[in-house]
């Protein structure tokens, strides 16, 4: 069994820690949601687990019937990535639907406002016309 040396521990732990801090800050700033944080944190956790508990890695590899534990590690990361992409696809589709709905509703609303505006202008013109006629009649009677 391969023995992991201290340098490897430090390197993997540092990368995992820096990445976790990076995505935690992004989540705190609401640039990522909590679910994204959990999914992306696996990119730090999975290599860390395989580094700190190599016996676990070999056990999993043996269970899965593969010779090298890193195959399992990349497999695990691939599944996580797939889940992430799956979730993003659903999210994008929903946003597309919302976008489509908004464009339709904006168009219909604009048309409705313009129709009402035209109708109001038309009604005002009729009222004004009647008023002008009345004024003319009034001044004629006065005269």
């Amino acid at each position: 069994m391969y023995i992991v040396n201290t340098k490897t521990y430090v390197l993997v732990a540092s990368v995992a820690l820096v990445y976790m801090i990076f995505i935690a800050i992004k989540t705190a700033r609401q640039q990522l949601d909590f679910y994204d944080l959990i999914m992306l944190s696996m990119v730090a956790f999975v290599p860390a687990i395989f580094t700190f508990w190599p016996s676990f890695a070999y056990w999993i590899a043996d269970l899965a019937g593969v010779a090298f534990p890193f195959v399992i590690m990349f497999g695990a990361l691939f599944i996580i990535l797939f889940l992430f992409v799956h979730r993003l696809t659903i999210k994008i589709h929903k946003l597309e639907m919302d976008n489509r709905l908004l464009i339709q509703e904006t168009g219909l609303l604009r048309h409705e406002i313009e129709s009402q505006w035209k109708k109001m202008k038309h009604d005002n013109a009729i009222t004004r016309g009647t008023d002008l006629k009345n004024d003319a009649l009034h001044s004629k009677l006065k005269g």
Partner: protein
Amino acid sequence: MSLPRVLLIIPCYNEQGSISALLKEIDDLCHDFEVIVVDDGSLDDTFKIAQPLSPTVHLLRNLGIGGAVQTGFKYADRHDFDFCVQIDGDGQHPPGQISKLLAAYGKDPAEIVIGSRFLTNDSFRSTWLRRFGGQIIARTLKILFPNCQISDPTSGMRLMNRRAIQFFARQYPYDFPEPISLAWALRAGMSVRDTPIKMRARQKGQGSIVGIKPLAYILRVLGYILLSRLKRRSLL
């Protein structure tokens, strides 16, 4: 009893060359049809030309034919129209043929009445690939929905009654919507008929399904039709 209100939905995208002639032709029909032009985010002057001639809804971005037509259905639903007729803005569908759809509905009412190019031999026909695709789609619909006996599922000239208007105002496919919408409607238990009409070649411009697109069209449409059969009725 008041006469049924009929709305003509005219979706258009970059149809500045044909829209005014089409609206004039509809105006000359002397029918009590109301018209709504849905300008699907055209890059040319379609909106500027159509707006003074007819009520026009302008969409800020191009949504595709499905999005534009659904906007028309929403308009028809909110303004309580009894029927709506969809015709293309490129002038392929002669407005004079609308009365044939209404007559067919009067004779044998169905939620959707399609104007078919293939029931007679004197109408304009598209390329063989498109006709072949249409035949495959019609046969698939027939297999999946045995009550459906239509010859031209890709025809964009169709009449819909109030139930269909309400249904499509809620949900309508984006791309290649004509045959897919039929599958959805059939799955929801609606009836569909067709009646012969005459169509013309495009007046101006080029169609959107060119090159190898008909193949993509057939595959996509067949996929959606098959999926619609799996869809639960309660979701429709």
